[in-house]
């Protein structure tokens, strides 16, 4: 089974901090994704990556950046955290487009 591991289930940070969310997958998947999940809004794509060092903006990239230095690891970075970035963050990976995405457990991030 594919395993997607997010580094933290719960995280509390302060406004203005630089925040790193880490995601690792163990199935040699090409594609990795970062979503934000908010009640009533569903999942919104922040960034995705289809190869090492490659990244594409999703629907809501503002205030975020990503890093993919190794195939198995995809990091989401909040450059200067703000309270409106309090949310659930989901990481996912897939073998290729049109294949199912496999999700991590999510990180519930609170910015105070």
């Amino acid at each position, binding site marked *: 089974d594919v395993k997607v591991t997010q580094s933290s289930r719960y995280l509390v940070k302060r406004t203005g901090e630089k925040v790193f969310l880490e995601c690792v997958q163990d199935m040699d998947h090409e594609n990795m994704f970062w979503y934000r999940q908010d009640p009533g809004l569903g*999942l919104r794509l922040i960034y995705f990556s289809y190869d090492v060092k490659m990244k*594409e903006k999703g629907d809501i990239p503002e205030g975020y950046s990503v890093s993919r230095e190794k195939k198995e690891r995809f990091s989401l970075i909040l450059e200067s955290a703000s309270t409106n970035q309090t949310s659930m963050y989901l990481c996912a990976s897939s073998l*290729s*487009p*049109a294949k199912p995405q496999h999700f991590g457990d*999510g990180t519930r991030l609170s910015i105070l």
Partner: protein
Amino acid sequence: AQTVTQSQPEMSVQEAETVTLSCTYDTSESNYYLFWYKQPPSRQMILVIRQEAYKQQNATENRFSVNFQKAAKSFSLKISDSQLGDTAMYFCAFDRGGGSNYKLTFGKGTLLTVNP
């Protein structure tokens, strides 16, 4: 741009009964893929079922089946013999299968509660 609409924010069903969750989408693509994902309370999102648009036959996975109407751009999920463990948020998703500006588009979700 693709959009996915789930018109039922919440639904409930009695255990052992059948329930149908609706999903419509908008696209100009002719070939694409549709998914239903399930997210139980405080648990991981998992795939329920996948449909390829070029296949006319509706996908089925045990108690879960879809009614795929390509012309109407409709993709509903039917859950038969509902179980308490089916209580979850269900998301419909559209995948255009690659190409430039590729992404998976999700609906806003339907919260399904199965009552004993």
